């Protein structure tokens, strides 16, 4: 059983970028700096693994901040290729 405090428990969700839509506006990272970093061209680098309960609010704000709608919260196995 997962005995971690509720706020640290993973949500079963992750942040996912549609790389074709993403144009590197860099507006996501400031909303969720613990989860999203930026590379030297302004494109997001997502910390691997699920979002924790306590990070969910920031993650949702980051999703809302993307002008290209390239960022979304999805189940962990969402983009498995085969």
């Amino acid at each position: 059983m997962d005995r971690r405090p509720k706020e640290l428990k993973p949500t079963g969700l992750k942040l996912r970028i549609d790389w074709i839509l993403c144009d590197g506006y860099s507006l996501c990272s400031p909303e969720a700096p613990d989860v999203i970093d930026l590379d030297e061209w302004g494109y997001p680098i997502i910390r691997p693994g699920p979002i924790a309960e306590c990070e969910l609010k920031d993650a949702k704000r980051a999703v809302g901040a993307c002008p290209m709608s390239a960022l979304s919260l999805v189940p962990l196995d969402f983009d498995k290729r085969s």
Partner: protein
Amino acid sequence: MTLGHDTRRLLAGPTLDGDPERYPAHIARLGALRAGAADRDIIGSLEASGLLGRGGAGFPVGRKWRALADRGGKSSAVVVANGAEGEPASHKDRILMAHRPHLVIDGAILAAEAIGADEIVFYVGREHEAALSAMKSAIAERKADLGRRAKLVQAPLGYVAGEATAVVNAINTGKGKPTTVPPRVSERGVGKKPTLVQNVESLAYAALIARYGDAWYRTAGRLGSKGTALVTVSGAVKDAGVWEIELGTPVGEVAEEAGATVARTRAVLLGGYFGTWANASDAWALPMDPATMKSAGLAFGCGLLWLLPTASCGVWATAQIMEYLADASAAQCGPCLFGLRAIADANTRLAAGRPTAGDLALIERLIPQTVGRGACHHPDGAVQLMASALHVFGEDFAHHARTGVCLVTSTPTGVR
């Protein structure tokens, strides 16, 4: 060409310097496919054969067909025979289509029957002229089998045009660029129908396994490997070309058959531009087999064996490949477009004797940063090749970076 005893299967029959095998010759040699696939449980046979996809990713062919055959609903499906061989150093798909087109067609028909597809698309690289004309004539010869369900589509130029989502995109819209997954092509592909995209060599083997069975397929193979495969041998060899080998045949044996020696070979590129470099002395005894190579951190990929001679510089050779791969980016995803360009530029500065401080560190930092950050696996494959170059040619890269001079050629440029 043969190695030791004759293990040719796809390439059995007439020599490869002549015309494509016509349909009457094909059935005289191999017999016609039986009407209806029900005679043999083809999916079960493919699963039991252990045949892995030969487009590069090596996914089990039987499992791929099974997943499509078991799809829910009653929607019709599409089979795409993928003959877009964008890999510049590989020639096995175009040789196969140019000389044994009916094996590819047989395989596509079997796949269509097995998964319940009512449409077959033969997708052939527009630059593969001999293959295109052979496939075109062969499809016309098979009108009775194919009816109106088959069409030939010329693949756009480009390394990424053979990637599964790009294949579907090209057939649907004419643009040979990858698309975001999901949807997977097996769920929504050509004309929004579930689509099986299968490499032409894999289909051709299915055509033989349907005739002779999985046990027959597994009678070939060495050192515990089972089956046969097409490989392209090129680079520093006298007799470059396409060979059909038993899986498990050592790299060195294939290379020597093509006229190479380990003493004159610095390194080998295995699996394609998305593959890996290996030191010739380490790789010479390595069995060419997907599982063995994977466990050694190497790749069978599309079956490429490219040889770099001892007199050549690995930094320079890698720069050529990285320039190609950076240019081949579909330019849709930032980390691929900018990351591969930055890596290629740094590699080229190193190779050309004009390194700037931090070029090597930049490459080392961008390799892990780039992985997984694209709609397709183009950036992943490219940085895998780069990582293997740093591993195999580490001293060379360090010397270029420190002195601006090549260890091999003693000139600044890595080229004599």
